[in-house]
């Protein structure tokens, strides 16, 4: 497909432009609605790397599962040439036409079933002859023959077993050995401490990475998952800072002349988002989605964590680099360990977050519902289309609404019920910033539901979801802003006004903890009713506050993390207000509440 050697330069420039645009968006917040990044409008050439989240299959979910029969020769023994070939053929037959193209070999390809590794003479990982009797190139060739792309996997650092007492030579060097690329104290690194940390101040170290990159390029791989990368992977501190490794990989891949997608894993540190954006095409934001149990995944183990963990990352996703939510294991209910509702919600979040869509299912055994989830073209288009990732527009309560404003003026709207029992979930149009009527298309069911006034409400099963495109026919909502720092407000406890460059008025109210309280006085509305009040806030982690009007008990809401303490986010909460003057209170109660920038109250209910 790609005829010319791939150049990294234009891409880096492009990404820089996007980052700049986002940053500019963040500082020019005036109406809160704009505090969220505007949809990236920069169009990315279709053959640019990661112009869209990648789609495909990964071996790890089945490797890591104790589902009967998957790993008959011991844990992680699933990974073999035969199995990869079988999945490749199934992917080509069933899913390729929907955009799935990567077949990714995960950890262990160089290790036997006892996890004993093989290395070549240059300390580079080498195919385990039992798993891959024809070597790694043969697998890639088969994948390519099916019109698909091949992915491979490596851990960060120099694996301890490859060190070979420091004697193993480094390819294309003047006598360097493994002793010359690590620290003299043999400090370990990566999420498992399974490697010695590479010392990139030493001249041969880059050569080692170059040699690895060249090897996988020579085999024909199109994708590399670099795993155990820190800060992240459960580690922090200098010893586990692998930014230099990632930069070296970026350089090495570029040098091969082969376009190889670099994906980073796992639970990458959001504080280094700019580094990950600079050097890679995707980063796992969370721990493994797999449960390491008798199924591939389970709702409570970590699928449900994603709703809390994604929002902080949302603004970092865009063409060139995406938030990776991990495998999409929704293809076979019994094997996945999930209900139908959970599988749909899983796929919905992945799509609206614009995560890569790679399934870890046994593609030879997809059930009909799973196939319908993985091949829904309207949902895939949400993930792959020229639209921004969605963001929660209501608090992270058990019932949530997520939305993204699309370039054509419509909204992608997802309803979620994360509670353990059925519930109705409502998306009032006011939370999207408009009033009146709107057309609603149900993407999962391929159905126009008609025109709805003021809101749409649907019944959702436990852990259920709906996914809509909402096309407004009404008018923009008129809001009145009330700054948290206004002198007419009442602060209680330790609450205090603080500077905040990203905030409107450059100030916010913080220190809302352990009884700290902020009350907006004299919020005047023309008539009694329920108002969707928008709350602009700053919170480096997810925090809760009780929001009430006029001294009522109110309701506790969990505000999603905005990613750091310098970024403003916004969610909308319904409050019942009376005609005339009202008070609105944020009470930290026994916990810690977010900092409040300001609230925007609609001029009509």
């Amino acid at each position, binding site marked *: 497909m790609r005829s010319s050697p791939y150049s990294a330069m234009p891409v880096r420039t492009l990404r820089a432009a996007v980052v700049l645009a986002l940053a500019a968006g963040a500082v020019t917040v005036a109406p809160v609605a704009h505090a969220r990044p505007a949809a990236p409008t920069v169009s990315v050439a279709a053959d640019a790397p990661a112009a869209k989240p990648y789609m495909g299959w990964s071996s790890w979910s089945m490797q890591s599962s104790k589902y009967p029969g998957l790993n008959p020769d011991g844990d992680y023994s699933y990974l073999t040439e035969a199995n990869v070939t079988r999945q490749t053929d199934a992917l080509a037959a069933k899913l390729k036409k929907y955009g799935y193209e990567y077949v990714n070999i995960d950890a262990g390809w160089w290790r036997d079933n006892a996890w004993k590794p093989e290395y070549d003479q240059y300390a580079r990982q080498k195919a385990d002859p039992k798993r891959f009797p024809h070597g790694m190139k043969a697998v890639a060739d088969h994948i390519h023959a099916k019109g698909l792309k091949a992915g491979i996997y490596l851990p960060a650092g120099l694996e301890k077993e490859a060190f070979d007492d420091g004697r193993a030579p480094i390819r294309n060097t003047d006598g360097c050995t493994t002793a010359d690329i690590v620290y003299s104290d043999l400090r370990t690194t990566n999420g498992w401490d399974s490697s010695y940390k590479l010392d990139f101040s030493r001249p041969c170290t880059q050569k080692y990475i170059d040699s690895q990159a060249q090897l996988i390029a020579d085999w024909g791989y199109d994708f590399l998952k670099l795993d155990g990368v820190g800060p992240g992977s459960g580690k922090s501190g200098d010893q586990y800072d692998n930014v230099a490794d990632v930069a070296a990989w970026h350089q090495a891949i570029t040098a091969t002349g082969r376009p190889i997608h670099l994906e980073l894993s796992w639970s990458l540190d959001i504080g280094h988002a700019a580094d990950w954006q600079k050097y890679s095409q995707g980063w796992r934001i969370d721990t493994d989605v797999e449960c390491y149990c008798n199924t591939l995944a389970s709702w409570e183990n970590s699928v449900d964590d994603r709703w809390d963990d994604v929002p902080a990352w949302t603004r970092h996703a865009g063409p060139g680099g995406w938030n990776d939510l991990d495998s999409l294991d929704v293809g076979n209910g019994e094997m996945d360990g999930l209900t139908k509702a959970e599988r749909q919600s899983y796929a919905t979040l992945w799509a609206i977050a614009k995560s890569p869509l790679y399934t870890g299912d046994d593609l030879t055994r997809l059930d009909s519902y799973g196939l319908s989830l993985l091949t829904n073209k309207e949902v895939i288009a949400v993930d792959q289309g020229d639209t921004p990732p969605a963001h929660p527009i209501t608090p992270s309560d058990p019932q949530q609404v997520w939305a993204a404003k699309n370039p054509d003026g419509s909204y992608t709207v997802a309803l979620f019920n994360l509670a*353990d029992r059925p519930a109705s979930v409502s998306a009032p149009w006011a939370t999207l910033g408009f009033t009146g009527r709107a057309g609603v298309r149900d993407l999962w069911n391929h159905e126009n539901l008609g025109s709805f006034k003021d809101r749409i409400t649907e019944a959702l099963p436990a852990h259920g979801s709906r996914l809509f495109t909402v096309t407004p026919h009404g008018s923009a909502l008129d809001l009145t802003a009330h700054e948290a720092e206004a002198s007419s407000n009442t602060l209680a406890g330790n609450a205090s006004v603080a500077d905040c460059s990203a905030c409107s008025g450059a100030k916010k109210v913080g220190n809302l903890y352990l009884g700290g309280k902020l009350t907006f006085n004299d919020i005047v509305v023309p008539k009694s009713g329920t108002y969707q009040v928008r709350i602009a806030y700053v919170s480096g982690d997810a925090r809760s506050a009780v929001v009430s009007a006029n001294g009522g008990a109110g309701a506790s809401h969990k505000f999603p993390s905005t990613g750091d303490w310098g970024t403003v986010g916004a969610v909308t909460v319904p409050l019942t207000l009376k005609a005339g003057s009202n008070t609105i209170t944020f009470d930290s109660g026994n916990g810690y509440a977010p900092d409040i920038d300001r609230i925007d109250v609609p001029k009509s209910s």
Partner: protein
Amino acid sequence: MHTDPSHLPRRDLLALAATTGVALAGLPAFTAHATPERPDDTNSPSHMSSSRDTLWWQAPADDDSMIEQGLPVGNGRLGALASNDPGRELLLVTDATLWTGNLNDTLDADGQFPYDRDNFGSFTLLGKLTVDLPDHDLGAVSGYRRTLDLARGVVTTSYVRSGVTYQRQIFASRPDDVIVLHFTQSGGGRYTGTVTLEGTHGEGTHGEGTAVAFGAAFANGLKYGAAVTAHGTGGRVTVGGSRIDFAGCKDLTVVLSGGTDYAPDAAKGFRDPSLDPEQLARTKVRDAAAHSADTLLRTHVADHSALFGQFDLALGTSSDGQRSLDTWERIKARTETGDPDPELEAAYVQFGRYLMISGSRGSLPLGLQGLWLDGNDPAWMGDYHTDINIQMNYWMADRAGLSSCFDALTDYCLAQLPSWTDLTRRLFNDSRNRYRNSSGKNAGWTIAISTNPYGGGGWWWHPAGNAWLCNSLWEHYEYTRSRAHLEKIYPLLKGACEFWEARLLTTTLPGSSREVLIADSDWSPEQGPLDAKGITYAQELVWALFGNFCTAATELRCDNSAAARISGLRKRLYLPQVSPKTGWLEEWMSPDNLGETTHRHLSPLVGLFPGDRIRPDGSTPDDIVAGATALLTARGMNSFGWANAWRSLCWARLKDADKAYQLFVNNLRPSTDGSNGTAPNLFDIYELGPGDGAFQIDANFGTPAAVVEMLLYSRPGHLELLPALPDAWAKSGSVRGAGARGGFVVDLSWRDGKPTEVRIRSVGGRTTTVAHGGTSRSVTLRPGASVTLRDFAR
């Protein structure tokens, strides 16, 4: 006289019912029913009720949330919780008599009763009915809505799937003795799916003819069975194996029935051996299925609405915003905003009435969960708790126009009495029983804290339980003035008095020469010392029992000498004093607080409510009223379900409208993850532990009773209008059909906190004063006559 119709062959029984028109309402068993009276088409209440009597939701239940989200239906005996999931309608079906256990007459080593699911027994599920519609997965439908029409007794679910509007109605018919599910659609839709009936005790279901059914028996010999049939139009319905398949049906009607061979007759071991429950269930579904679903619906609605319509309540007007919310949103908003929602608050009362109509007619009375279960291990066996819970279940019946629903409690007590008497005679004075009569004498009957339907008790002996049950039965007489009821309960009262005659001890009060009678060793429910003599709870209840017995004997003109003797004992009964230490009415004969200050039970306040020895009207010494008030204050405002309801009733008696109302509001708090409060389906939930809530129906009846008590106080000869009307309801409102002790029914309207019009009808009462504020009127009426008074507002 109460005739036991089970002596008659069934054919004669049917003939009797048909010729006399006597419904077999008093027959607590699964038996052949009389031919239903069918309303004619032109005169049927087929339309929807007004919105204020209709609850609605925008989400269904699922298998795991039935107790919080399932909607209850019931015909007084046969009940179900319905999930209303479009793709999988699930009904958890119950029969009030489907109990494990037995007489349970082998005491434990401590002389108390075993309390387990094998010997004492447990209320359990009859079966699970599912109607699977694979194309109607919840994720594929839109506009989902379901309603519970309290006035008609119908659950309706509707939704849109691919442009077709589907609707299903579910109701439990008493006249036809079946549960009906009627599936319809408009827009060219078709129903394809499966009906499955399963037991929950390992029974095998089998198809035969047009129905699938099962029948089995428990280890205790109780036989039971259930059957379901289905018919549709435009498609195919086939009975195969253990299920019914249907395909391409324009509409579908599913009819279910079931029951047991339980009989309310201790002499027969609580069984009717002539009954074959499975066969009877097959007959009932076949007979009902011969009628159209519309006919079955009309018949049911006529029956249900006749009872429901005997009472009406308006507490004010809610806002348009409140009205726009579904019932669960409204429950949450009530707490979040703190704003009164008068229509919701009235609907909560009507929901309690709906539960009573659905759960207490012609079979066993309502236990801890009424007729509704989500499994076979309900908390506390779903049993009859006699130290508050069963009494509270029936506080509402007479107050809220459902006197006939009270009969299930009366019939239960009567049927159990021979066994209770036998157990008391044989076991109460067991030397191991710490509560035995130290006098060595033994007579009459009493019960345990828990009772089952087989004459057995569970947990510990509860000596004063007999008195409290009798006092409840007596109050029903005060409301209804039914001579037949008085005759029925008289043996219960008499036996209870005999028990106490044998049990009371004479003691001399310290520091005086005054001799008094006190109750022997007992436990003030369910706290403090286990062996306290003269507990206030027993003293008050026995004092009331003795008084009631004497009145009964006088009215029945019998047992003169016994009445005189009991009257004499009553005068010598010790009554509680106020502790000089705490200022509280004493719970034990001690100035010390020997229990938990905020304990859930208000046992020492039974004389304030439900009794009325303690009255804040000058007739009770001020220090006693003050002591009761101080104790009630100390018990606090922040308990749960039934404990809040009881507190509310007590504050209503003390005319503290704010506190009475606040406790009502506390019970409306939304229950989330099992916390104390009201679940989405309005069931009251008691938090057993973090994340673990149990349904306890008593608050669903006790809380409405408190609402009525705030509006109308009554005792024989005296009515007080709006004794504790909260500000939230003061602007305007009305109650119609409220029962009043003394034998009256009251319709009352008010405005700006004052009565504007009151109509008093006699259902047997003759003379009463009617008071409000400083105004009092005397009214004399013939039974059946009524009078309207309008001059209280001045």
